[in-house]
């Protein structure tokens, strides 16, 4: 009976320990963020900002996957009319979320400059940006990431809105300022 009992105890111990080892993943949660697109027109310079982004990062077996998403309609440019026009032009009711995914080695997360390949889903299109640089600063348990995604209207097949028959510039760089908490 003793060997059987020991075997049973070992199995129970293993079953308890196994999930503990499996949960050795590191998780990051987006604590606060500011995502701003910049729109340029000969008569206007406009920034639309969203503070509604949510994000999560999971590092497993030395590889990290991050997802950040925010509703398109959460971007505020300071004018309701312009925001509604933006929502229409970007097909924001049909495709209500902007999603950014990235994948990199866990070792890269501690470097002052992080280079990431991004997959951005927006306006019903998916665009890929490679080797986008982000600055990383450690603030206690939190990690602050800042950088700019070099987005273009044409990347997402957005018909550029025009004012006085002059369209906005194709470039709509998105400034990112995020604070992640390691859990």
């Amino acid at each position: 009976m003793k060997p059987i009992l020991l075997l049973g105890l070992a199995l129970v111990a293993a079953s308890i320990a196994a999930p503990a080892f499996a949960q050795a993943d590191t998780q990051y949660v987006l604590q606060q963020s500011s995502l701003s697109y910049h729109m340029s027109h000969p008569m206007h310079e406009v920034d639309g900002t969203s503070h509604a982004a949510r994000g999560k990062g999971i590092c497993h077996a030395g590889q990290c996957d991050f997802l950040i998403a925010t509703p398109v309609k959460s971007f505020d440019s300071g004018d309701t009319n312009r925001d509604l026009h933006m929502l229409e032009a970007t097909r924001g009711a049909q495709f209500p979320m902007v999603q950014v995914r990235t994948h990199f080695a866990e070792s890269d997360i501690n470097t002052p400059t992080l280079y990431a390949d991004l997959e951005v889903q927006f306006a019903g299109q998916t665009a890929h940006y490679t080797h986008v640089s982000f600055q990383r600063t450690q603030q206690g348990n939190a990690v602050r990431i800042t950088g700019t995604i070099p987005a273009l209207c044409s990347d997402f097949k957005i018909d550029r809105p025009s004012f006085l028959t002059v369209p906005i510039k194709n470039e709509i760089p998105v400034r990112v300022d995020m604070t992640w908490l390691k859990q």
Partner: protein
Amino acid sequence: MLTQKRKFAVTMRVLLLCSLLATLVFAQKGFAETYTLSGKVSDSAGHAVPSATVTAKSVANGKTLTAETGSDGTYSIHDLAGGDYEVSAVAGELQAPPIKVTLAAAQTTDLVVTPAANRVESLPNAPQQQQTPPANPNAPSLSDLGFTPQQTQANAQLQATLAKRTEMLKIHQRLGLITTIPMAAAVFTGPLAKAKGKNGQIIKEPTDANLDFHAALGGLTTALYFTTASYAIFAPRIPNNPKHGGIKWHEALAWVHGPGMVLTPVLGYMAYKQENSGEKAHGIAAQHGTVAYITAGAYGAAIVAVSWPIHIKFWEKQ
């Protein structure tokens, strides 16, 4: 005096006709916006299917438009009005069952044709819910982030409403800018159409040409103004969307130039009648100019408000 009145009446009729024609042209553009539905027809193995007939049937009125796919399997159906359509494809024995597509902008819809007995579901790219599963099973998904279904759910009806609203406001903007031309001209020709001198003394009346020209400009401005206003008034409203920013001022100023645009022509007509009687405009009619200046000022301010902040840098290349 009769000649003057007849001239005025003829001028006003011509202007009214021009305004109506302009309104009809803009109205047709605004209310009959069309879109293009395009995509690719392929078989279940992913091969392009040429010479397939793609049909788009309007759910609202049953109107049907068809197109044939090219050698690469692509098709385009042009001039479709916005709304819901049932899109299907047939290629010999192969068929794609109808799928519902809501057109609010140019849209791409791919179809998969299969033998009728072994039909698989078609693959529209219009999302019901915007959620793409991550390639890596460990990667977080949209559902992990805690957004509500209302936040992530596609709303084709809202998209169609936004498209309609944008189209109408674009016309509102263009017509509004066009209106500034006769309005400014009417303001500048105002003093030329004014009788000079004091009542009871010799009144120096304006020439018929000046009077008619100013009245015609006023009439054209009024017609264009109310056409412009109608595109904003009847543009669809977006619920739960409190206004802030320049648009708030733009709308508030309409409470000044709107009544002003009603009052100005009325006072102008009264002044015109008084001057035709050999009198200088008097009483409330004498305020025609003042009301017109305030109205034009509020109108200009409304344009500036919706354009603010303005950074002029036309020298930069687009």
